[in-house]
Structures are given as structure tokens and as C-alpha cells.
């Protein structure tokens, strides 16, 4: 009880919990779940954008996209490492993903259907992710907070690149502008849902707030995102697909329509348009790569044995 009080005091004083520190088991489990979900999201998130690497319409954009998808994989690595400081192995976490027990961000279960999707994912999906993640840079668990600082920096860069891609397309041919609008229409509502269920229906939030893992509510973040994005859409010259979207001078915020939560939960629960493809691809990649991982392990073992014999 002493330890618990000291732990909570540290958090309340905005201090950081480090791997060697005592922490409640539930705090540890919550963090493992959250960090690994986040790591899985980065890795699965390589697939929808990876879909356009071989077809990028200019070499510069191909290089930017390739580097971006690589960054996502890199984020996956930091986050798996952060999770490992909590006493779990990456192999266990991956096994949880592939067996379907662990989740990843549901946004990656929607298809990328034209080149503008690459820009819209940068602008809106990464934009929403940053909004979610900035508070995590002040998360009470040190390794996670530090990973998030680095990740947020890179994500902001991706967001600007995505927006710039769209600006270029909006200055182009009518077909290009049409592609951008089509992509915005398909992604807008999915991005609003990324902030999670309304506060009234959110399960984990309260405890997470107390533990300094979550600092701002879903609905507050969603509102911030809408307020930040509408002016950007105007500059871009696209229409956000929500007839109820309107500035509310009394609230000092934009009002917006109702999210289709049935669709959201259906996708979260495995029945979105691409859930099976995303997971099937990860499983196949893991299985096809088994001989490589086993070969490398066998070689390392042989090397150790040889070194051992020489030493003897």
C-alpha cells in the first residue's frame, strides 16, 4: 500500500515511472496492452500505404512514400522495445497479433483505392493519430513517453508531406482533384472514429486518466481534430462529407454529424472491408519468413559453439 501510494504520488506530481520502478500489475498490463496495440498498428499500417509504393506516379513521391512506410516500421520497433521493458517479449506480442487476440488500429482495415489516399492518410489519419498521441508524450511511463516524443515528431513530418501531396494534386488536372475528393470522402468519417467511442460510452478512460496514461478525453480530442482540420480542408479546396459540419460561434467550435458507430464496432470486431486481408498478409509474411529467422538463429548458435571450442 505504501508502494502504491508512492507510485500514485509520483504520477500526480507529473513524474515518470521507469522500468525498474515498482508499479501495480494492472498498470503494467494496461500499458502492455496499449503499447503493443500501438506497435501492431504501426506494422499493420505499413500495408495500406505499401499498396501504392510500386505504383507511385513520380520517383520523388515513391521515395517519400517508401521512407514514410519505413518510418512506420521503425515506430513499430521502438514501441515493441518500450513494451519489452514491461517484461514481455516481442515474439509473444506478435503471436497475440497473429492469433487475433491483440488488436490494432481499426483505421487500417479500410482499403487504399487511389493515389490520393496516400496523401489523405498523411493528412487525416496521421493528423488524427498525432492528436491522440501528443498527450502520450507526457504519459506517466517513461519509455513510452520518450518513444512517443520521437514518433510524434516524425508523424508531424508525414502529415505535412501528405498535405503537400494533396495541394499539388489539387493544383493539377480535374481527374487529380476528383481523386483527392474521392479519397477525402472515404476517409473523413473513419478518421473521426479513430478517437474512439464517445466519452459517455468509453470503458477504460477513467482509470487511465488516474494513471497518467490518458490525459484528454476522446470527445475533446475529436473536437480539437475537427477544429484544426476544417480550415485546412478549405485551403485545400475539398469538401468534407458532412452536411452538418458548421461553425458554432457559441461553442467556439465546429459542430459535426453523427458517426456510424455500428460500422465502427463491426470493423473493430473483425468484419471491416480489409481485416482478413491485413491479418492474412501478416500471418503469411511471418510464416514465409520462418526459415530466415530460424536460419539466422542456427547460424548464431553455430558461431557461439565455434567460439566456445576455440576458447576451450
Amino acid at each position: 500500500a505504501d508502494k502504491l501510494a508512492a507510485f500514485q504520488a509520483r504520477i500526480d506530481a507529473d513524474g515518470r515511472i521507469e522500468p525498474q520502478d515498482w508499479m501495480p500489475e494492472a498498470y503494467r498490463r494496461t500499458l502492455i496492452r496499449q503499447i503493443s496495440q500501438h506497435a501492431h498498428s504501426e506494422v499493420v499500417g505499413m500495408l495500406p500505404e505499401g499498396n501504392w509504393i510500386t505504383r507511385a506516379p513520380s520517383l520523388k513521391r515513391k521515395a517519400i512514400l517508401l521512407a514514410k512506410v519505413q518510418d512506420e516500421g521503425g515506430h513499430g520497433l521502438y514501441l515493441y522495445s518500450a513494451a519489452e521493458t514491461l517484461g514481455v517479449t516481442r515474439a509473444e506480442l506478435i503471436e497475440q497479433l497473429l492469433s487475433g487476440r491483440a488488436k490494432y488500429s481499426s483505421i487500417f482495415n479500410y482499403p487504399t483505392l487511389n493515389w490520393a489516399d496516400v496523401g489523405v492518410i498523411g493528412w487525416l489519419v496521421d493528423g488524427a493519430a498525432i492528436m491522440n498521441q501528443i498527450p502520450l508524450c507526457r504519459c506517466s511511463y517513461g519509455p513510452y513517453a520518450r518513444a512517443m516524443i520521437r514518433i510524434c515528431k516524425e508523424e508531424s513530418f508525414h502529415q505535412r508531406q501528405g498535405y503537400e501531396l494533396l495541394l499539388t494534386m489539387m493544383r493539377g488536372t480535374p481527374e487529380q482533384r476528383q481523386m483527392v475528393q474521392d479519397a477525402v470522402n472515404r476517409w473523413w468519417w473513419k478518421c473521426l472514429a479513430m478517437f474512439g467511442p464517445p466519452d459517455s460510452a468509453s470503458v477504460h478512460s477513467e482509470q487511465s486518466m488516474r494513471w497518467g496514461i490518458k490525459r484528454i478525453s476522446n470527445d475533446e480530442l475529436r473536437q480539437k481534430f475537427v477544429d484544426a482540420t476544417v480550415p485546412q480542408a478549405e485551403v485545400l479546396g475539398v469538401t468534407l462529407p458532412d452536411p452538418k459540419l458548421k461553425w458554432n460561434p457559441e461553442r467556439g467550435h465546429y459542430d459535426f454529424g453523427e458517426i456510424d458507430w455500428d460500422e465502427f464496432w463491426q470493423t473493430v470486431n473483425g468484419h471491416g472491408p480489409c481485416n482478413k486481408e491485413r491479418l492474412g498478409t501478416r500471418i503469411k509474411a511471418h510464416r514465409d519468413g520462418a526459415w530466415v529467422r530460424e536460419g539466422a538463429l542456427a547460424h548464431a548458435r553455430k558461431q557461439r559453439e565455434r567460439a566456445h571450442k576455440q576458447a576451450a
Partner: protein
Amino acid sequence: MSAVATDTVVIDYLLHLGDNALVLAQRNSQWCGVGPVLEEDLALTNQTLDLLGQARLLYQEAARLQGGDATEDTLAYFRDAPAFRNYVLLELPASLPRVGYAQGDMDWGVTLARNFLYSALMVPLWEALQTSAHAPLAAIAAKSLKEARYHLRHASEWVVRLGDGTEESHQRMQAAFDHLMPYTQEFWTDSALEHAAVQAGVGVAPVALKPVWDATVDATLEEATLHRPSAEGYVPQGKTGLHSEHLSYLLAEMQCVARAHPGAVW
């Protein structure tokens, strides 16, 4: 030789080098997100980015010499297969031999073996090209050399690891080298393109690099406990524009968006 004729020689030689880099980048980029382990997925993507960077510099210089509306993108996206000057080795799918339309799983061993065989060539080639009479090419070579050295070191380490790993990884690496080795014969044949570039002091006679390449290959394969297969039979001629059935598929995919919107800026 007139200035215009020299320009043509340099342009063709730059395209040969640039096409090699781009076509291999395109093949390797197919692994992005589906590699056997995250660290190696990222490492391969790193190398792909290097190759893409090399291709862009080489095309930019070719486009500058060509003048008119030529850009790195017109060269990458609006030439058909017979205009490409890359080695056939680099356009093959990452799989054991099969026809272009018979789809199948990719094979990491083939990717690795190919990257090894190619970077073992490019290290001495870029080294030699540092003294090219065409100064912009010499500058690109100096930059690319550092990258190629890293690619070679990385690929060699993995060839050793998997050649001297499990029985399965050994067999797969051997099968990959058995499949690819005959395609390396193209490295050593003289082509009109290279001959002219050598005459102009711009390029390098490939056959001069064979001893270095042989030594690298022999040393790595030996350490990997792999047998060096013979390279015989048909000698590919991709650098003269005669390709395999695979390149046209690769280009159709790579170029489809750009060609659907001619004149668009991206």
C-alpha cells in the same frame, strides 16, 4: 567524337546505370511491409531508398543532357521495356524460375542472393567510375560507392548466416544462387553502349572488374558453405534492350498511374 555523339554515349550509359538501380529498387520495394523480420524489412527498404536515390541522380543528369522536356520522371515512366537498359538479373521476380504470368510466393533467398551478386559488382564499378571523365557521373559514383559498400556488407553477412544456418536455409540459398548465377554472365559481356562509354573515358570495361567480383563471390560463398554454381548457357542482353518476359509486367505496374494521367504533376 562530336559533342552531340558524346552526349548520346553518356546518356545511354547513365540510363543503363539508372535503369539497374530503378528496376532493382522496384523489385525490392515489393517486400516493404512483408519481410521475414521487421529489422530486415527496414534494412532492405533502406537499400531500396539508396537505389532509388541513385536512379534519380542518374536520370536527372541524363535528362539534363537530353534537354527538352525530359525529366527523371519521363525517363522512368514513359519508356517501354525495349528502351530499358538494365541487366535481366534485376528484373526477375523474387522467386525460383517460373514464367511471368504464373503468380507465386516471393522468396527472400532470391532477393538476398541477387542483392549480393549485384552489389558485389557495383562496389568495384562505382569505385572505378569515381574517375569518370564525365564529372557529374564521378560525383554520383563517389556517393553511391558508400551505399554499395554497405549493401554488399549487409548482403554478405546474410548470405553467410543463411548459407551456414539450418539445412532448409542452406538449400534455399543454394537454389537461389543456382537460379541466378547464369544471369551474371551479362555483367562481363561487352556491349556497344559500354564500349563507346569506355572509349569516351566515361565508363568502365566491365570485364576488368571480374577478378574482384570473383574473389568477393568465392570468399562469401565459401564462408557460407555454399557451392558456387557454374554460369553457363544463354547470356542475357538486357543492357542492349533485349529483356525477359518479366520486365513488361514490372513496368506496367510501375507506370500505370503516371500513364493514366499524362501531363499531370505529382
